């Protein structure tokens, strides 16, 4: 059954139709969000919030883009909001940190928390490249949809992806 039919079913009160949508996109969405956030618990939370926001706003879904693109867009917005909150918190917290502790921790904020394997490298990418590569690799979105989410041209999305992959391979080797 296609997504639009499932959406219509959900709007008619068939909760199980929404369950099918969750089954369909939950894995890809989690992998994508996990690549954007350091904290696995936060990633789980964002996926849940994204689905609930999608459910609440289902009536407003016009179908201009696919449901998959839409829910990824919601998740990206949520990730960015959390990232901003995190930045703000760390800015406030730095005034309370002693000088010795500051000297001991001079790495990029993304590197402060231990990441497993490639996640560490993804975290080092600039935000746009990180989004593009994650949307492509984990969520298997076409470049046209990635471009729509990021508000860039399809070619720019491809170039961004190319650069990101080259960087990742360089860091890994």
């Amino acid at each position, binding site marked *: 059954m296609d997504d639009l039919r499932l959406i219509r079913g959900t709007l008619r009160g068939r909760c199980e139709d929404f*369950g099918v949508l*969750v089954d369909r996109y939950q894995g890809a969405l*989690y992998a994508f969000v996990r*690549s954007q956030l350091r904290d696995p618990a936060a990633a789980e939370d964002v*996926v849940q919030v994204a689905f609930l926001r999608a459910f609440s706003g289902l009536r407003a879904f016009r179908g201009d883009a696919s449901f998959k693109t839409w829910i990824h867009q919601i998740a990206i917005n949520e990730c960015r909001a959390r990232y901003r909150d995190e930045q703000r918190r760390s800015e406030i917290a730095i005034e309370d940190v002693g000088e010795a502790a500051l000297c001991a921790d001079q790495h990029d904020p993304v590197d402060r928390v231990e990441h497993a394997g*490639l996640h560490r490298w993804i975290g080092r990418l600039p935000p746009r490249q990180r989004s593009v590569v994650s949307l*492509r690799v984990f969520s298997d979105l076409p470049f046209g949809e990635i471009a729509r989410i990021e508000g860039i041209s399809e070619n720019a999305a491809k170039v961004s992806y190319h650069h990101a*992959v080259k960087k990742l391979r360089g860091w*890994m080797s």
Partner: protein
Amino acid sequence: MVDYVDGSLADSDARLVESHCRDCAGCADALVALREVPGLLCAEVAPSPELLMRQRKEILSAVEGLIRAESGRTDGFDFRILLPIAAALVIALAGLISLRPGWYPEDGVGLARAAFLFEMEDPQSAAAMSEILGVPLVLSERFWRGVVDADLSAPLAVGGMSLGSSSAHDAPSGDDSSDDDLSDDDFMEIEELLGMGFVG
């Protein structure tokens, strides 16, 4: 290069990329990266089935909660939605009365009566209206109480003179009950006001 790896290039273009990569080490490396890196990344972040199952359960249970909350909201009638309607009605009524011919502007007595009626029904609206129309309602209430109690639809007779009707000389024939309801002091006060040009 990305399109080549995706397999979306036309055959002729794909052959051009292949021939270029044979002579260009940088592009050949990029091609390898584009083929290898996505697979490596995917292997790292694939969520466990347990995690997905637990999360699915949480999402659907939250969705059911939202549905319950939504149906709970629609079960009972929310009277708060009537507030803006009531406010709009009061404003519309005030506008209608202020524009109604015969009450305004030539007939100040009719105006005072209308304002007083408002006061009887809804003191707050009447107070607001009195401010807009410039009619002191505290006085009008005292003056017109007897008249309103008697008969609002009849032309108003004060001191043998008809007020609020088409002609001030159309005096009612004798037995108007409003004459009985108003005291002599009231008549004097009204006449004094009429003389001052307040209501007349």
